[in-house]
C-alpha cells in the first residue's frame, strides 16, 4: 500500500472517530427549515 493511501486511510479513520464521538450524523441538517411566525396580541378579545 502506498504511503498516500495509508495517509488517506488514517484521515478517514480520524473523521469517522470524530463523527462517532459526537454521536451519529445530525439528521436535523437534512430537515427542511422550520418556519416560525410570531403573532402579537393584547390579552383581550
Amino acid at each position: 500500500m502506498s504511503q498516500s493511501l495509508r495517509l488517506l486511510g488514517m484521515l478517514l479513520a480520524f473523521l469517522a472517530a470524530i463523527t462517532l464521538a459526537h454521536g451519529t450524523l445530525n439528521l436535523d441538517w437534512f430537515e427542511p427549515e422550520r418556519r416560525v411566525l410570531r403573532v402579537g396580541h393584547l390579552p383581550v378579545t
Partner: protein
Amino acid sequence: MTEHSSRGTQFLSKKYTSWPAITDDINGGTLDAAFLLAPLAMVMAREGGAPVKIVHLGHRDGTTMVVRADSPYRSFADLRGTRVAVPHRYSNQRILIERLKDQYGFTDQDITIIDYAPPEMPAGLETGQFESYIVGEPFGAKAELDGFGRVLYYTKDIWPDFISCVLVVTERLIDSDPGLVAELVAGITASGLWLDQGDERLMAGVVPEEQAPADELARADLVVLPDGHDRAPRMQAALIAARENYFNQDPELLEFVLSQPPDRVKYTNLLLAEEEMEEIQGYAERLGFFSKRPVTPQDPFGFDDYCDPRFERQTGRELPLQEK
C-alpha cells in the same frame, strides 16, 4: 390551537401590554402579524410606517359595556352627563359609543369619552374614574365576577356580529411568504370552528389529570385537565388561553367569558365583509381618524386598500386533536 401546523410551521404568541407597543414593533419591522383593533388597523394601513393589510377577523362580539352594580343606569339614555372609558381612540368600541350617541340623540357634550387601558378598566370603574366602560373580554366579566360591575349591554344585542380585533399582517410578509399567511388564516378559521362546533376530543397538549406526570417540570408544557372538568372545546380553550404566554388570567374567568352566555363571544363567520368594513371606515372618517392623510376624491381609500381577503379561500386545515 393555531400554534403548530401539520406542515411544521410554528406560530408563537407574543403578548403585549399596550396597542402602541404593537404598532411600534410593526412599524419598526420586528413584527409581521398581530391582532389589532379594526379602526386602528385601517389607520395603520392609511398612515402607518409599514404597509399592512387586514386578512381575517379574530372573533365576533366579545365586547361588553359595564356599569357599577349599585348604579341607577339601565340604558344608554341614563348615561347623559357621565364619563365612559374606551380601550383606544381608534377602536370600534369608540365607534359603537358614537352609534349609540346617534341613536339616543346625544351631542358631543352629553357624554365624555376617556381612553383607558383595558386591564385597568375594572379598577377604574370601582374607584369612580368613570361611570361606565366598554371593552373586549375578559375585562367586562372581571367586574361582573368581582361583584361590583353589571353588564349594561353585550355587543351582540346592540350591534350584532360586532367586530373588535382583526388579524393584520405586513405587506412585506404577504410578498415574501404568502403561504405562511394562508396557513395562519386557515389555522384561525379551523380553531374558530373547533371552538364553536367541535367535539370533546382533547387538543394536543391537553392531558387529563390522571394521565399527567407528577413532576412539575414535566407538567410545565402541558395543559392539565382537572378530574371531572368539562371537555367541551371552549372549556379546554379557557385552560389553554389562561396560560402565561396567552392571556395570563384566571381560567375560571375565561370559562365564564366563553360560556355565560354561550354567544357572548363567537369564533365563526370570520370572513371579511366589505359592507361591514366600509361602515367602520365611514365612522373612522367622520371621527377624524385619518387626520394625517384625509380621504378625498383625489386621494381615495377603500376596502381593497386595507383588506386582502385572498387568504380566506384556503381552508381545511387539520387541528392536532387527540383521538378518544
